[in-house]
């Protein structure tokens, strides 16, 4: 089984305790090459820096947009896991981001 780790520490604004905003999410998506990596590995772990207090859905939505659309919710949750030794729990923000991505996709297919 091929595994890969994306350490968010590498994409963190120095001293910031939060990841926010679509532009930052897009930047991390491009720099981490998550869309390509998702097709090459069986398991991907996203490592959250220990002292991070929030990863807002706006960031996650842009960061994970293509992989969630590609894999679907279940496929994404099977392949991706999040590792954090700190207090912050990503579950609620992740669920919100996934819902946003899928809802938008549904709405766009409804329009076509």
């Amino acid at each position, binding site marked *: 089984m091929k595994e890969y780790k994306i350490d968010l520490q590498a994409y963190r604004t120095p001293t*910031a*305790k*939060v990841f*926010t*905003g*679509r532009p930052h999410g897009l930047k991390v998506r491009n720099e981490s090459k998550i869309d390509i990596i998702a097709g090459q590995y069986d398991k991907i772990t996203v490592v959250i820096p220990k002292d991070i*207090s*929030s990863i*807002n*859905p*706006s960031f996650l939505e842009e960061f994970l947009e293509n992989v969630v659309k590609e894999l679907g919710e279940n496929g994404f949750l099977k392949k991706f896991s999040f590792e954090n030794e700190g*207090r*912050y729990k990503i579950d*609620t*923000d992740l669920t*919100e981001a996934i819902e*946003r991505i899928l*809802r*938008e996709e549904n*709405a*766009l297919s*409804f*329009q076509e």
Partner: protein
Amino acid sequence: MILIDCNYFEMCDLGLKLSDLASIAQVIIAIANICLAIYIFTYQRSKDQKTQNDTARLNEQNIKLQWFKELVIQPNFDVINKFYDDLNSIEGQIGSNDLNDEEKEKINDFIKASQSRLRKSLVDVLLFVDPQFANKAKENLDKLVDGITEAIFNDELKLKNPNTYEKYIASKISASKNNLIAQLYNYKGLSS
């Protein structure tokens, strides 16, 4: 012009009499009249068609706006106000300038939960009505919530200070509310 300018003798040379010229002129005028009639008919028809299309478009817009008001805005009016009231209430939750990370996270979670409720109630419906419009509303809300998150976790900001709170949080809340109201008010029923 050449024929009209030339004199009688020249016309005779060409084998044309004045009566012939009059006949030719009549034919030319008749052709011109026919062309003009065709032009006026075509022009009027396309103008009528355009007016008809504009009226149909306007009717469609009016119907959509009416549904938009009844199905999207009216049921969400309280939700929108509640969201901004929730955000304004965090002033009371900021008890001191030295909140610990846990206290900050609690406030931040409260804000994100409020945004999630508004997203489910308003933005998700807008997505099905007009995705472009929904994205503008979502950008507005994200910008606000992200701005507040960044302010809360910026240790250099003393948010208990009224001026700092006003600058980094309160002014952003009211700007976002005004922006959302303006977006809804200016919606024309069709994004393009």
